[in-house]
């Protein structure tokens, strides 16, 4: 796979090193001369000097044959514009952007950026997870409809423990799609009874997630 990484900050550099070890072909572009010099020492010819938000630079990097473009500069506006140009002009199939302001996430995906990574959100969610009894880990978010799959391990405080699915009043627009018990995956049916330590996988509309956590995962 041919991958373009725009932005040679710590994230861009680590990502490049990791992907090179995985034998991908890639190039990193960095516009700060001092950073570029440092990157060259580590990455050799896999880094070029230039502004990745410039169309000419992208073309020089072989944007029209790239499979993936990752925009990890320091600012949301640059990452958004770069991903949009990559898609629109060079038809790069997959674009990924780093986001600082989590409120931009929806905008980015509505404008065609295929995937977004928000460090802010990730750290915030880890902090919240430490505090919450009912900790949920996002597994998959659907770009289109504000729907996600998360998993959560049932603690002894969960009101689901020792209850049958058919007796639950689940909120609208949510489904428990799988239960992991030890090494066994259970596809739940009406008569499935939950146990402490079960890991449940829930498909849910995002607005309903808080209600679900309150009702079933946190200590009453």
């Amino acid at each position, binding site marked *: 796979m041919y991958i373009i990484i725009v932005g040679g900050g710590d994230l861009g550099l680590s990502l490049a090193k990791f992907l090179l070890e995985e034998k991908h072909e890639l190039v990193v572009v960095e516009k700060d001369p001092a950073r570029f010099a440092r990157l060259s020492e580590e990455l050799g010819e896999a880094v070029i000097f230039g502004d990745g938000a410039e169309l000419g630079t992208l073309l020089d990097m072989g944007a029209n044959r790239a499979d993936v473009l990752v925009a990890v500069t320091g600012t949301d506006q640059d990452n958004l514009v770069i991903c949009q140009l990559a898609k*629109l002009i060079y038809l790069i199939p997959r674009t990924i952007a780093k986001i600082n302001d989590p409120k931009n996430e929806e905008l980015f995906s509505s404008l065609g950026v295929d995937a977004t990574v928000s460090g802010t959100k990730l750290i915030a969610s880890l902090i919240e997870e430490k505090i919450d009894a009912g900790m949920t880990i996002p597994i998959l978010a659907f770009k289109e409809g504000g729907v996600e799959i998360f998993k959560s391990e049932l603690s002894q405080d969960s009101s689901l423990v020792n209850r049958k699915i058919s007796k639950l009043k689940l909120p609208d627009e949510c489904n428990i799609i799988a239960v992991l018990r030890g090494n066994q995956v259970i596809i739940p049916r009406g008569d499935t009874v939950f146990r402490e330590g079960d890991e449940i996988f829930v498909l849910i509309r995002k607005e309903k997630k808080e209600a679900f956590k309150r009702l079933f995962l946190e200590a009453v």
Partner: protein
Amino acid sequence: MSSGSIGKVVILGCSKVGAMLATWLSQEGSDVVVIDSQDSSFARLPKGGQIKRIIGIGLEYDTLKRAGLESADVFLALTNSDNINIAAAELAQHKFKVPKVACRVYGPQRAKAFEELGLNIICPTVMVAEKFQEFLKTK
């Protein structure tokens, strides 16, 4: 709303053009809010006017919301950064649903690309070049 007013206008970037437009629009009776990341930029605005000033970084949802973008009739992105202008205009157009949105983009290729994506773009580079071309044609 007085006769010349075009309603509520939010301008991002108290650049020379931003400040000039803000002054004109405010004089015509529009309700004007200007956002800039540096307090010193507001020195370009007339003293004691009706123009509301907000300090905030460019592409930040909360800043735009604080400036009242949800109820704005017009949004103009006039910072000195093409990418901030483009991204903010997209935010205003797609998320805040502002009826009239335009932004300044210096780079001609970029201007063309984002025009294709449905943004109203004013590209000073092209405009100035055309003016010079016109001048050269006159005898």
